[in-house]
């Protein structure tokens, strides 16, 4: 049939046509389709999770298929929002990197969540998976946003979509935690980020992300400094101190949510926005030339060390991981404030390596909680003998986050150090190194206790069930793969950053 042949080829042309690339809105809408499917199948749990998983795999495929066309500048305008401002998607390497992290880890988390929720016999599983899908939609929306307004809408949608997940248990704790979560995130975004965006709009007459920086040459150093601080504190999801409080508060959520929040969607949306603002709104040359990022660099450095110290003192496993996240996110924010191409590339890579590493750690924490009902570090003695896969994965991911070879985190930390050195920031160089040492100190005791200390009594359980242990082994393998594949992740970034 010649007719359908042209139809297909037309569709394919429209899929990646530079002006109106259908691929972009379809990618954002895919999780929504999954959401619809899983709501329809709510009476059949297996089919429901199948729908989640299938849409996750389709989404991952769709996102990966965008890599070959990443430098073609695809755009898609949804519609005009206000006169002079439109909702628009565009494709660029940094955004696609974030989209890939979220899209690839979503199906993995789905498998884990299925195992976890069923083992724990959680209530309202349909609601859980529905809001999960909505969060991923928001992540895709943020990743592909072409301007600040579009991004802000996705950013707030994500806050609202994750809130019922944090409050999922409905207990008094969950209520308190979810309140802090919502109040901190909305207060920062509406109180600081929104005025920052409006200000940018008034200064530059546009909110488009522009290579080289939208604000380049549009404002003096003083204004840029204040504006940059507004952005960095306003992006509460990046968890700079003192607006990090929502992150430990969100620990009341079930572990798959913590995995999603701390590795895949929420915090990465935060640091992604920070990088995007640094690169496309301020422009790295403007930032480093004017010194507008200097004050925030110290805030990031303080957060990096302080959070690591808190993590070191936390006995609760999830709390320790949460503060470790705060500390590791500060690495990425620090990369943005150092404002060197190499550092930002390191930050972008750290977004990926930390995502894979931290999701592994949370999966392990969940596996330990479900299988052994343990949630404190001091209770983990000898558990490694019963759960060797889980603890091995924990060890691998820990080393990756610390940044030692042969794991993915090595390269991101290396690039960050190079960036700090290039900017002659000796203090920051030391901060980065001390942060890694502290990471070693707060993460390593956990697998060490598991493997080398004798268990207090006989262990009544074995390894976690397959749907739980499978994903965590997979992501641990991912940490190793990132060591060898880091070049492939970095290569597309060469289009926007100058890499050595």
């Amino acid at each position, binding site marked *: 049939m010649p007719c359908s042949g042209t139809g297909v080829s037309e569709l394919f042309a429209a899929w990646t046509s530079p002006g109106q690339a259908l691929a972009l809105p379809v990618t954002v809408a895919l999780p929504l389709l999954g959401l619809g499917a899983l709501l329809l199948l709510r009476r059949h749990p297996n089919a429901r999770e199948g729908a989640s998983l299938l849409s996750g795999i389709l989404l991952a495929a769709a996102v990966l298929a965008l890599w070959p066309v990443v430098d073609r500048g695809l755009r898609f305008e949804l*519609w005009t929002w206000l*006169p002079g401002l439109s909702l628009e998607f565009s494709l660029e390497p940094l955004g696609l990197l974030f989209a890939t992290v979220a899209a690839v880890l979503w199906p993995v988390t789905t498998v884990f969540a299925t195992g976890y929720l069923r083992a724990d016999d959680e209530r309202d599983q349909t609601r859980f998976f529905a809001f999960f899908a909505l969060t991923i939609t928001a992540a895709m929306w943020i990743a592909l946003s072409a301007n600040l307004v579009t991004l802000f809408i996705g950013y*707030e949608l994500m806050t609202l979509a994750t809130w019922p997940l944090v409050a999922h248990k409905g207990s008094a704790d969950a209520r308190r935690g979810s309140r802090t979560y*919502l109040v901190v995130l909305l207060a920062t975004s509406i109180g600081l980020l*929104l005025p920052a965006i409006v200000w940018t709009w008034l200064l530059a007459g546009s909110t488009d992300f522009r290579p080289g920086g939208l604000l380049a040459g549009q404002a003096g150093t003083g204004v840029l400094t204040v504006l940059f601080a507004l952005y960095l504190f306003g992006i509460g999801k990046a968890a700079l101190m003192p607006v990090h409080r929502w992150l430990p508060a969100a620990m009341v959520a079930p572990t798959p949510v913590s995995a999603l929040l701390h590795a895949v969607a929420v915090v990465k949306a935060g640091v992604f926005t920070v990088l995007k603002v640094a690169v496309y709104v301020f422009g790295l040359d403007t930032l480093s030339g004017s010194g507008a990022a200097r004050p925030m660099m110290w805030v990031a450095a303080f957060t990096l060390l302080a959070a690591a110290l808190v993590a070191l003192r936390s006995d609760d496993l999830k709390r320790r991981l949460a503060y470790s996240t705060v500390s590791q996110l500060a690495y990425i924010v620090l990369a943005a404030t150092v404002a060197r191409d190499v550092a930002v590339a390191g930050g972008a890579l750290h977004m990926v390596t930390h995502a894979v590493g931290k999701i592994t750690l949370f999966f392990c924490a969940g596996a330990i909680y479900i299988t052994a009902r343990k949630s404190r570090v001091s209770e983990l003695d000898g558990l490694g003998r019963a759960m060797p896969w889980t603890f091995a994965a924990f060890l691998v991911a820990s080393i990756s986050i610390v940044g030692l070879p042969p794991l993915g985190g090595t390269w991101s930390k290396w690039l960050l150090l190079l960036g700090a050195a290039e900017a002659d920031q000796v203090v920051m160089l030391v901060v980065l190194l001390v942060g890694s040492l502290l990471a070693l100190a707060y993460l390593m005791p956990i697998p060490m206790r598991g493997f080398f200390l004798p268990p207090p009594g006989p262990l009544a359980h074995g390894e976690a069930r397959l749907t739980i242990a499978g994903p965590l082994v997979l992501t641990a393998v991912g940490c190793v793969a990132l060591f060898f594949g880091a070049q492939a992740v970095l290569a597309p970034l060469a289009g926007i950053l100058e890499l050595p």
Partner: protein
Amino acid sequence: MTAHLPVLPVLVPLACTPLCLLLRSRTMAWLIFMLAALGSLLSAVLLAVRVADGETMRYAMGGWPAPQGIEFVISGFNTPVLLLVSLIAVIAAVYARRSVAAEIDARRVPLLYTCLCLTLTGLLGITVTGDAFNVFVFLEISSLSSYALIAMGRRRRALVASFRYLVIGTVGATFVLIGIGLAYAVTGTLNMADLARRLADIDGNRALLASVVFVFVGLAVKMAVFPLHAWLPAAYAEAPSAVSTFLAAASTKVAIYVFCRFAFTVFGATLVFGTMPIGRVGLLLASLAMLIGSAVACFQTDLKYLLAWSSVAQIGYIVAGISLATSAGVSAGYLHMINHAVLKAALFGAAGLLLLRLGSVRLTALAGLGRRMPWTFAAVVIAGLGLVGVPPTAGFVSKWALAAALLDQGQWPVLVVMLVSSLLALVYIGRIVEVAWFRNPVELGETPKPPASMVAAIWVLVIASLYFGLDATLPAGLADAAADALLGNRGE
């Protein structure tokens, strides 16, 4: 026929008023109010299309030409209000049938629809008239009928609320009258366009300054601008649900429109915002309203009172925009006028639905009902997030526009106040959410089924608020046209 179009939005509900009273049947009275609202909406839409290209329609009542006769004027500055009020009237009419049947004594139902018709006549009359004294007449028509409407509330407290509104409202209306009288004494004319022409030549006249003050203070009462808001919370909260849905969305908005009309097209921006400090006073009072209204709303224990106090704050947003007297500011004010009307009508509508099903809207009575009545509470949360200004709701668009307008003028303190007020809105909306989803459910017997018409009315508004949040070209276009018409037509 079409030559008489400008008079129809007022004439249709006015003609329907005696019919409501004479027919004495509940269904017929409702039907006639519905027809009146639909008729007004239809003529409003036709008029809006006519003047969409920026021209002005003038209509001489009874063939007596202005400035001697009364003139109706349709232009960019009143079409948004005309559309808004008649549209809200239609939705309120859909909503009212079951709500009124449940809340009001059967004997009084035709009376209620009569008053609603009269209020609609008054509000639309204020909007279209081009004659300053005629504004006062229509203001009194709408006020007197709304005092009666509020007095029909289910509790005896409604009588107190109504009486209070009557006293304060009458003082306000008298102030307006004195102001108009002074303007007449100075110029010898009552036609707005004529007034503007003659006032332009007068400089530094004490009587004129007094006139400005009297008109604006009187209008501030009707607008419920802090600290002249005292009548509003009880009046909205105690009125029958259908009435509060309509009044909360429409009545203060019309007063705000008159404020703009007098400020920009009668007295003129140079006099009002240049010679006199109305702009600065407006910003100050708006800031206080935003802070105090939202803060008091956080401590309310009754949903309808909470919403009414939030209205006090939201009016502050609108006044702040208009007080800037810039094109962006006035446009932001109009935009929030539209968005707030939609959001608040949805919220009062939902409160009325809860009242119908539970018999009370005290927050304690709502405990744990989020699961039992998910659609109603979903509507409350979505519209509530609109008040906070979270995307993708309409409230975000108005917040954006207002923030841009304030920043443009370097009004940092007001911007901060606005953001703080938004966060306070988060607190009071959050309280509703916590009560509805996290408290232990109250013991509840059989509750009446939610009437489909009421649910439909609420959700039409909620969906409109989401649509206006994602694609604001329609309300923003209307608001921009209004700002252009107000700021551009003084022949400067």
